[in-house]
């Protein structure tokens, strides 16, 4: 009974809506990377872009009735977690050396 309701849910929302939503979220992430100078915010916007792609892949997988898409989302989440851990460690090292989180300080790759 419950699965019938879920199936109707999938039929109710067109796939184009998910593609549109993911495109908008991805462009907001790109905008944030271009707009802000704080390295922490830039990392957050990269997370936003990864999430937009994840949502799109899950949507395609659900519309095809295929579980491989969800497995790939799972792996992308694992890679994103590792990326955040290493990125924040690099950020801590940058902050320890330059005493701020401005991305423009890193343009020369030395200090």
């Amino acid at each position, binding site marked *: 009974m419950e699965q019938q309701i879920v199936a109707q849910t999938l039929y109710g929302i067109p796939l184009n809506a998910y593609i549109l939503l993911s495109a908008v979220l991805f462009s907001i992430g790109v905008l944030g990377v271009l707009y802000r100078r704080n390295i922490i915010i830039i990392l957050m916007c990269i997370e936003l872009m990864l999430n937009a792609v994840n949502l799109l892949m899950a949507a395609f997988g659900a519309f*095809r009735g295929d*579980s491989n898409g*969800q497995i790939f989302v799972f792996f992308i989440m694992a890679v994103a977690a590792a990326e955040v851990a290493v990125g924040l460690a690099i950020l801590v090292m940058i902050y320890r050396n330059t005493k701020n989180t401005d991305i423009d300080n890193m343009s020369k790759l030395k200090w």
Partner: protein
Amino acid sequence: MTLYIFYFLSFLAVLSAFMVVYSKNPVHSVLYLIVTFFSIAGHYILLNAQFLAAVHIIVYAGAIMVLFLYVIMMFNLNKEAEPHKDAYIKLAATIAGGIFMIVLIGSLKGVEHIENLNTPNQSAGLIKNLGNVLYRDYMLPFEMASILFLSAMVGAVFLGKNELK
């Protein structure tokens, strides 16, 4: 009904994503990002991917956001310490991001309404089915992910050390 839930979650996600970019205080950005993540988890539930929704909340709202908040707390960042670009770069960034969005959305213009290709497998997102696929077809990538985590952990500890000797 579910269409309204979809619209509400999409609106919430897009609005809080904008607030991540435009809020001055980094702590507010993190909090808005948590709202975005929860609405994306709601989308996963709408897509009948319960396992993904649970993992998304645990990994993003539970682990990654705590890392971000911890780093911000350690640096004592607030509104005064926030670096700002000048107005020209902000304008250029907004125009570039907007044009990118227009290109992405405009490429969808000619696409006709996409129907379901085959009858969707309703149990595709359940843990039982996903576990079968993950441990049978994707065994090697799963083990590689553990090696990736180990190397990421070692790298993070190494980078975070005070003096590299």
